[in-house]
């Protein structure tokens, strides 16, 4: 696979990852990604046509529990590290 990527692709990925790219860094980041993709593309040498992907080790079933709230007294604690709250709600800038 040709691992050369366009500036647009890099910008698209950065937008998905919610990371800002300064104008100066775009070229550097693109070169960086190309080098990394080149490296992991070595997997192409392997024929894995009929191989089942392994998503997780030893995960056969997800253990279930009763659908009961067991920690409803943790609100204050949970909000303690928040940058801005009303006491009950997290406060964020609006999205427009």
């Amino acid at each position, binding site marked *: 696979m040709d691992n050369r990527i366009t500036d647009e692709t890099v910008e698209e990925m950065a937008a998905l990852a*919610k990371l800002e790219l300064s104008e100066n860094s775009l070229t550097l980041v693109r070169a960086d990604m190309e080098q990394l*993709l080149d490296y*992991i*593309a070595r997997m192409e040498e392997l024929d894995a046509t009929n191989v089942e992907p392994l998503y997780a080790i030893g995960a056969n079933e997800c253990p279930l529990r009763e659908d009961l709230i067991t920690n409803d007294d943790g609100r204050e*604690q949970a909000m303690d590290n928040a940058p801005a709250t009303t006491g009950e709600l997290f406060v964020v800038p609006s999205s427009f």
Partner: protein
Amino acid sequence: MNFSDMTALQLGQYLHQKEIAVGEVLDAVFEQIDKREEELHCYITLDREGVYRQAERIQSCILTGEIPSPLAGVPISVKDNLCTKGLRTTCGTAMLENFVPPYDASVVERLREAGMLIIGKTNMDEFAMGSTTETSYFGVTRNPTDPSHVPGGSSGGSAASVAAGEAFAALGTDTGGSVRQPAAYCGVYGFKPTYGTVSRYGLIAYASSLDQVGFFTKDAADSAALMQYTCIRDRKDATSVGLSDPGMLEKIWKAAISKERQNQGELFDESTANRMKGKRIGILKEIPGVNVAPAIQKAVREVGAIFEGMGAEVEEYEPTMWEYGLCAYYTIAPAEASSNLGRYDGVKYGLRKDREELHDMYLATRTAGFGEEVRRRILLGTFVLSRSYYDAYYQKAMKVRRLLTDELGRAFGRFDLLLGPVSQQTAPKLGVCLQDPVQMYLGDLFTTPANMAGMPAISIPCGCDEKGLPVGVQLMADRFRDKELLQTAYLCERKGISCRNTKQ
């Protein structure tokens, strides 16, 4: 009494026999910290007040004879990606610089119940992404043996704290080698248990299918004891299965502290020698194009020869999938990281860079909060999970993971244990590795297979190279064979194979 060289279990014995007080031990540890911390920087946060309070409680327990475990009263350091209630937990990142968890990680809770004292939180590569502890937002940690060299990573602070006598044991985490490699670089034991045996609840996630809590210790018996008190199935971690019959680990550390052993010194008795008879050891064959330092190769060969001398059957093992496995690791780990680190958005905790609009706030916060290596891996993860690349990279990596795991499964049909290097080199100098990320990633070749297959592995210190830098060798076993692995590591010690290199 000079107890700084004691192992955790030995110290526990002296404490419980009331030959020293817990407070005295803490005084000595802090004296050592004050002596070396400025140079080494093992810790991000020290909890002087809190730990003396813990010490008082444990001392009362000791006096009344209600001793919770053989490790009670022993000071331990904790890698800063494990949540400690009320004690700042930064994960080595600006994003969590002031984060104070409202809960303990399950493994921390277990060790508190066992009476261990948490001295502080150790330095680490940012979000556990790195192999040198140089990507930490809080500055580097230096190798206690030679401070112009790295301690390894990402659990460099934990490894260095034990090597430098700033803790008697340490918790670390291992996603691609981050316990075993710094252990090798610093000359201590580094044990990564089977995936799922130690709960990840409260471990700040990097790559959830690969992360595992591990231990830094001065000997194998200490790792066995730590494992015993932490390998309990935890309902708060859906991937946690624990280890059946953890009491079997007791045999290892009880043998270590038994009166008989103390009297006999280094005597290696018949029954212990027989344990290796007939054991099948696979010694890793050289991989073409991969240069392992002569001192490391020599150590691996020597350990193999000693096993053979003890009656083990040692044969060469030639893996075919390890190099591809490393490519797959550097596809899967960044992919999982890009997902896990999506939670850092400045809303509920952590850094926030205020902006007028919500998405601008996300962008500004994340760009400011994450360092270069973290941003690199998040971007790479985003790439491999994106529509155009998913099949070629992520899906392919999942298949390579299957191939690698199957190959290792077959290997453990032939062998009881695999023996080989931990890394290609001993600790490099500071400032070298970050210049070439791919070169740095290649250093994880020998450690990532155990994470990819969820298998236990341990780094055993085996002397030093010609520069005086510590050398480690790695033993690996099949899933849930943690006890056999620790037992063999313990035998290495008894036979004088391994030796800590702790220049304090």
